[in-house]
Every structure is written in C-alpha cells, then in structure tokens.
C-alpha cells in the first residue's frame, strides 16, 4: 500500500518538475510557436543564479527565495536579449530558429564552463528543506514538496495573469489572431517581447528550483529540454491547462512504470505511449480553436 502511495507522490513530484521546466516553454513555444532550443540554457542560467546568489548572501535559508526572484529576471533578461537580437528576425522560419537557438544554447553552455568551470558546483539546500516528511508511510523529501508547491503557485499566478490583466488579454489576443490583434491597436512587437520575457523568466525559476534536487552544471538544461518539449506537445499548443495535465500524467505514469520495470525501460514505454497518443490526437490534449485563417 505504501508503495502505491509513495509512487503517487513521486509521480506528482516528477510531474511538478516537468511542469516547471515546461511552463515557460508553453508560452514561448506553445503560444508564440518559437522552437527555442536555448530554453534549457535559461534553466541553466537560473541554476547558476542560485549559486551566485548563495555565494553573495552565504546563508542558504533566505538565498533560495531571493534566487527565485533574481532567477526570474536573469532568465527573462536573457530571453528578451535573444528575442530582440535573433528570434524576432525569423518568426516565420521555424527551422532557422531551431538551428540558431541551438547554437546559442551551445555558446551559453560553453560560457558557463568558462565562467564557473566544468565540474558541477554545489548549491546548498536551506536547512528548513532538509530531510523528508512521512506521508501515509511514504517518505517524501521536503525539497520535492517545495517544488510541487512552487509549480502550483507559478501556474496559478500565470493563468490569473493571462486571464485577468490587460497584458494577459493582449498576449492571448496576439496568440489567437495576430493580424486582428494588430488592427485593434495592440503592438504585437511589445506583446511578443513580454511573452518571451515571462516564458524565459519561468525557465530561470525552474533552474533555481532544480538546484534543490539535481546538479548545477553546464549541461543541466539539456536534461530537461526534451521532456519540456514533450509536455508542451502532449498538452497541446497554446494552453496552460494542457501542459499541467500532461506534466502530471507523464510524471505519474513514469513513476509507476519505473517502479515495476527499470528506469531505461520506463523511458522507452513512456515514449511509445506518447507516440501512440500523438497518432490519435496530433493536436495534443487541448487545442486553441480560432477562426483565424492561418
């Protein structure tokens, strides 16, 4: 019994990590259609931000919360820089975007190695997150509960912002019908930059959170990039709720399959399930329905 419950929590935890990594991508890829291969490196930037902030403040307790904030702006700033210098020139050339952002990703990885060295650096988790909590016979590490809560908060804030604020309405308008939005007086340039800022900033937050459970090295972003794309594709482009459901579904599936088989087999089975699913529903779980001609 405690195995079933333990794996449920593990699944929720894996799901929340997938969700955090994918949330920013669901904006930049899902809403704007930009295949940003450097998204993983924005996650990496967030991780190194956590490291730098910890070096400056030297107390692990408060530095995590400060890092989350700083990480958001570091990721966001890098995203805006990428958007303004490169991505905006190729909105209608997805393959070029893919290659260019992949190259940017490689450059950023090498930059991280040059600045911080090739070996992984250690970000100390705060004292109040050490150890685990006993939930119905299963020990769940506190760091994972923190990430679960953080993911839920990020989703809540993001969906409220998209639904209720003027900025959110502009983003949705541009996503659903760019031309119509422009004729209504919305600056699609400014909206694009804002969307990219928020999406990349969320990657930064994910990077900070991931230092709690994984390594902080130049390759950290690559580990999560493919999974993040999977979540967005399975969830359906342009919908936050699709990403949420997809992330938790994949996380829980993964944890149960892995428990009864092995990690490698679980990954294979998961990919097979996704391929079959996309055969049946190529548009993913949810698709935006618009009357747009394109």
């Amino acid at each position, binding site marked *: 019994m405690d195995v079933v419950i333990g*794996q449920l929590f593990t699944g929720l935890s894996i799901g929340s*990590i997938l969700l955090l990594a994918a949330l920013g991508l669901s904006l930049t890829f899902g809403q704007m259609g930009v295949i940003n291969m450097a998204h993983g490196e924005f996650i990496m930037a967030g991780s190194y931000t956590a490291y730098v902030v910890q070096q400056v403040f030297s107390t692990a307790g408060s530095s995590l919360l400060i890092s989350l904030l700083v990480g958001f702006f570091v990721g966001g700033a890098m995203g805006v820089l990428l958007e303004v210098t490169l991505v905006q020139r190729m909105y209608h050339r997805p393959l070029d975007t893919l290659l260019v952002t992949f190259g940017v990703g490689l450059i950023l990885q090498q930059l991280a190695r040059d600045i911080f060295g090739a070996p992984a650096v*250690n970000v100390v988790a705060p004292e109040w997150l050490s150890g*685990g909590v006993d939930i119905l016979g299963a020990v769940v590490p*506190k760091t994972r509960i923190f990430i679960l809560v953080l993911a839920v908060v990020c989703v809540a804030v993001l969906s409220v912002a998209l639904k209720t604020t003027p900025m959110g309405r502009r983003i949705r308008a541009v996503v659903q019908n760019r031309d119509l939005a422009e004729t209504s007086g919305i600056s699609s340039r400014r909206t694009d930059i804002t969307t990219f800022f928020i999406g990349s900033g969320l990657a930064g937050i994910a990077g900070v959170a991931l230092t709690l*459970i*994984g390594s902080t090295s130049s390759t950290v972003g690559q580990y999560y990039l493919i999974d993040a794309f999977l979540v967005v594709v399975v969830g359906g482009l342009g919908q936050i709720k699709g990403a949420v459901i997809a992330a938790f579904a994949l996380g829980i599936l993964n944890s149960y399959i892995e*428990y009864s088989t092995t990690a490698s087999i679980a990954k294979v089975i998961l990919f097979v399930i996704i391929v079959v699913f996309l055969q049946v529903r190529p548009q993913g779980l949810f698709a935006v329905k618009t009357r747009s001609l394109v």
Partner: protein
Amino acid sequence: MSVSRRTTISKRALVAPAALAAVGLVLSACGSKAGDETAASGTTESCVNTSGDTIKVGSLNSLSGTMAISEVTVRDSIALAVEEINNSGGVLGKKIEIVAEDGASEPTVFAEKAEKLISSDCVAAVFGGWTSSSRKAMLPVFEDKNSLLYYPVQYEGLEDSKNIFYTGATTNQQIIPALDYLKEKGVKSLYLVGSDYVFPQTANREIKAYAAANGIEIKGEDYTPLGSTDFSTIVNKVRSADADAVFNTLNGDSNVAFFREYTNAGLKAADMPVVSVSIAEEEVAGIGAQNIAGQLTAWNYYQTIDSPENKKFVDAYKAKYGATKPTSDPMEAAYTSVYLWKNTAEKANSFAVEDIQNASDGVTFNAPEGLVTIDGDNHHITKTARIGEIRPDGLIYTVWDSGSPIEPDPYLTSYSWAESLASK
C-alpha cells in the same frame, strides 16, 4: 580556459579534421601500395618524427559534453606531468609537445580524433579517454594504426590490447577488494545501482558472480540512462529492498541527483552505506559534502595519502591550477601514465611502438599512490586498493588498504567464481 573556448567551434570545425583524416587515410593507403610488401602485413608505417628536439604526444579528453566535468581534470594532470618532465630535461633529450583534442563525450569523436592524432599529427603516444565506450571506440583505431594509448581510468576489465596501457584499476584492484571489504564487515545483501552502459553492466555481472559464490544476496539491480536526473523511484526501491549496502556504479552528474535524493529521503550511511566506484574528490564538491559524508568509495588513490610523492604531486597541481582544486584517482593515474611512458621510452631508448611494447614489462614509477609496475603481458599496472570514507571536509580518507600493490588480473583468471565471465 583558451582550450575550452575552441571547443565551441569544434562541432562546426569537425568536418575539417575528419576530411583531413580521410585524405591522410587515402594517401597512406596509396603509399603503402606503392611501397614494399611488408606494409601489406597490416602495420602501417609510423610517421612519428624523432629527428627534432621535440617529441609530440596527444592528449585526448572530453572538454565539452556531459563528461567534461571529469575529463578536463585529466587533461590538466597530463599537462602537469609533461611540464615537470620538460623542466627536468625531457625524454631521451627531447621536450614533449602536447597536441590537445576534444573527444566531446562522444565515442565516435574519440575514434575520429585518435585517428587524426596518429595519422596527421604523428604523435608518439596518446593519453586520455574516460568512459569505456570511448576506449572501445578508440581500440580498433590504435590497433589498426599500431600506435599507443595510455588509458587512465578504472574500468570493468575483461580486455587487453598490445596497443593500450591501462594505468587505472581493473576490477581485481578495485571492485573485488571493495566486495571483500564489505563481506568482512558482515554485509549479507547488496542493491546495485548504475548508469546504463558498458562499465556498470559488466561490473555488476562480476559483482553478481562474486555474490553468488560468497553467499551475498542481490536484492535489486537498477540502471538509469546516462545523465538521468530523477532518482526518487530508485531510492524508493532501495528503501523497500532494505539491503545491507548499495553498490553504486553511476557516472557523472547523475550522482548528484542520486545522493541528494538518498539523503533527503532519510537514508543514512550508518544504516545503508553506499559504496561508489566513480566518485572522486572532484565529484564530492559538486554533490555537496553534506549530502554524501560518511559514504564509502573504492579507489587506488586519494588526495589525503601521506607520502612524499603525493605531497609533491598535490602541491604542484594546486600551484598550477589553484589551491581549491582537489586531486583524484583518475588524475593521478593520468599523471602516472605520462611518467610510465617516459620511463619505458628511456628503458627502450626509443619512441617506436614496438620497442616500447617490448621494454614495458617491469617498468616502475614511484607514483603518488605508491610504487606501480607495468605488467608486460596484459599492459595493466600493479596498484594498491584503498577503501575510503568521505568526510564533511569534502576529502576522502583511507579506512582500509590492501597493504601492497595487487597484480592486475583483467580476466579474473585467478578467481574460480569468475570462470564463466571471461567467455561471455
């Protein structure tokens, strides 16, 4: 960091050396056809230039990709040994010149770059490689071209090549002593966790054979893809299996995620120790000493070894690369490999591959880990096995050692329980 900067462009520049190597291959093939019949016997004529006052060697390590975390330190150690040798007069009166290449954590790139180093740079020997996959990819290149590779990392054994010198431990100098140690401590059951590739799979096959012969129960065996970052399920499995100890053959960044999960889930070294064979001082820093303190490792060298040779090595390394940089087993083995090559060349009074092979038996070096001797038959070296405990200061301290250097036995022929392994 200038070397690592050029690795960014290496993907794009890859085509050029590959094309060069291909041209070189065609040229040498034509040349051998035009030449006398001896070339047809399979040994290509060496292009190593021994007439000048320098001799070229290759340093082939992953400076980019997932293995860069470990292999950059090996490159640094090779450079240190070369610098020391050059400062004290070189080898046979010649200064050593390093040609450095990036293996990019890809076995195929290792093979390509090895070919380039041998055929177009004409190096006398190559130092480097880390993963078994990279060594397996390079092996046919060194055999075809009849050149020399010095491979400095502990590995899974069951291999020997007259073109490779193995200066890291084979299993009977690392894994089997670790199992002996655990057995002596009363361990009755083990859980095996490893990355999904050559070394952990083969090592675990040997561990299972040992366990079967010694009455140790294997409670579980799990592999994760290289670079895997989520160990929550595996740690849950380990916890419910409740083995006496965990034998860890994970490689690279996965160790960070594994030990953080292990500690956060409340598992302790005192109740269920983890014995690791791929975690050295360098990795401890990335994992965070607080997450791994008390756990065990099996190696042949630790920075804390108290000997004049080691003090000299550690001081020189820190002076060159920074006081906070730790020294580790593969680094020491890489450093040692350069000296062993030098000592063999001086004994042979030649840089020729055949002369080095013939002279290698019995060549010794007073290494930081203690005296090592090359075995001319299997090209491995004698090594002292050491079990270490990781302490909160991030260093590893010897808690047990084999007393004297252990003869290398890559095919485990002296162990009756291992009979079925070598044939597989």
